């Protein structure tokens, strides 16, 4: 099976040729297979968000190639092969919840009736049925982020790109959202790339955790998470979970020390 995401020898330089030139990413190689859930974790400024934006073709790489579903990233973006979720829910406050979820469909000129039914379906998936006609400001932070996930899923992409989607939520809400995201991933069989600061979150959700270091951003270690595919509250209390958390913590410490 071809990888869903293939990052081949990618480097990214910001402001090339100027005094404030920064080497953000250095020679990144990473293949992500269909159905995988890959978390990218690393200290602030290690370029993990940049990596995500390269996959989404929001910025071009300085060298190397990014393939999504076997296509160059720009083509994948045009084909809407992925859905994206940011740390801020980034809902348009002038649109209702349902209209926000319909936005990508509108841009693809999907007929109204189908748009509405698909939005309803996605909102049911994130357990927000009945909130279709609410406005974003009437929702809590966690609910807003669920709308953002529904919006990312509504195009039925194979790939989900998430940039610290739960970073602004409190611990309790975050754990609940982790469970929900896990359930969605389990049910829909998507591939996911997930940026996070939280070790616990990364281990709980992922099949693989990629650890990155700073200046220049590069991959220092890839840790396979060999927990059972189905995870729930009890998973967080297993010995293996703790071992893996420690393993990632160690790897992060080494990355920060520049080893």
């Amino acid at each position: 099976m071809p990888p869903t995401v293939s990052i081949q020898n990618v480097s990214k330089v910001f402001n090339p040729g100027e005094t404030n030139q920064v080497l953000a990413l250095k020679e990144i190689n990473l293949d992500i297979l269909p159905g995988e859930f890959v978390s990218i974790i690393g200290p602030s400024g290690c370029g993990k968000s940049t990596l995500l934006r390269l996959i989404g073709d929001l910025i071009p790489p300085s060298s190397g190639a990014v393939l999504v579903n076997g296509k160059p990233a720009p083509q994948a973006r045009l084909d809407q092969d992925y859905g994206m979720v940011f740390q801020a829910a980034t809902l348009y406050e002038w649109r209702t919840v349902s209209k926000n979820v319909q936005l990508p469909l509108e841009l693809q000129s999907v007929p109204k009736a189908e748009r509405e039914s698909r939005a309803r379906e996605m909102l049911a998936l994130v357990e927000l049925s009945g909130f279709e006609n609410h406005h974003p400001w009437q929702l809590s932070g966690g609910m807003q982020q669920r709308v953002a996930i529904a919006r990312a899923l509504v195009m039925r992409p194979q790939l989900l790109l998430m940039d610290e989607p739960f970073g602004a939520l409190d611990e309790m809400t975050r754990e609940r959202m982790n469970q929900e995201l896990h359930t969605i991933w389990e049910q829909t069989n998507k591939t996911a790339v997930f940026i996070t600061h939280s070790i616990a979150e990364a281990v709980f959700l992922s099949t693989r955790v990629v650890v990155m270091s700073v200046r220049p951003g590069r991959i220092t270690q890839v840790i396979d998470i060999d927990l059972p595919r189905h995870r729930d509250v009890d998973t967080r209390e297993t010995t293996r979970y703790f071992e893996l958390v420690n393993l990632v913590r160690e790897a992060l410490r080494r990355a920060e020390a520049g080893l």
Partner: protein
Amino acid sequence: MSETLTLPAPIITEKQGRFSRWWHGRSRFARQTISLIVILLLLAFAWEGLKFIGGDPWRPANNPFGIEHNPPFRFKIASDLNLPHLWKIFEAFGRESRRNGPPLIQVLAGAAVFTFREAFLGFAIGGLLGFSLGAIFAHSRVLERGFMPYVVASQTVPILAIAPMVIIWLKAGWLSVAIIAAYLTFFPVTINTLRGLRSVEGTAVELMHSYAASTWTMMWKLRFPAALPLIFTALKISATASVVGAIIGELPSGIRDGLGGAILNFNSYYISGPERLWATILITAFVGIFFYLLVSLVEYLILRNRRRPE
């Protein structure tokens, strides 16, 4: 330091041309200066272009070939009376303002200083009044509710209508003109002072309370500094408004030493010398921009170490 008007997002900028790259390599100040000059040149070009296509016949002075340019069209606005040649306007600065009088530039410079003094005094009075009102309203909701509707309504009164009465009360002179200018100046300052002082809430206030700070300390150590950026925003509007106010105040008062008087004066001689009115307008524009820049400079000096509020 401020990025407010540049696109804040890393949007895809692959197809940057050479010009674009060169342009963004310049400093912000250089970019703004260059663009200002370019726009002024374009305006001058459009001005003379319009005259070239649709102005009055033009015969360069002292030309040995007797060349005369006859524009194909005649637009009313582009006639020599309605849109004098730019060089005529600049020439007018050097000519005498009336028969055997001093050169126009000298008269206008004097008028500009005169009007600027009125405007500055009005700005000071209006600024102080505006700040005081804002501070009082910030401390009393009842007073705010009682007076705010009138403060807002006051700005729908055309001051030109009030000016004659102020002048009767206070006699024609630059104090009365300054008061009229202050009437236009105080409003933005009141609104933004109130908003700025009120904008401080939550933990910052609790912190001061934890130090057992008095209302007075709270005001000067916390609320006032927090309100400063908004107050400066208002002062910049007020700077322009005070120049407008000073000019309007001069009109019905019979004061003829300022720019308002000069506008009235040269307007009445428009037929015989339109370029003198245009020259006066140029100077007026200059005074307005100068005052705005002056306040901006003070703002920069005082707030330069702060993050821009947005």
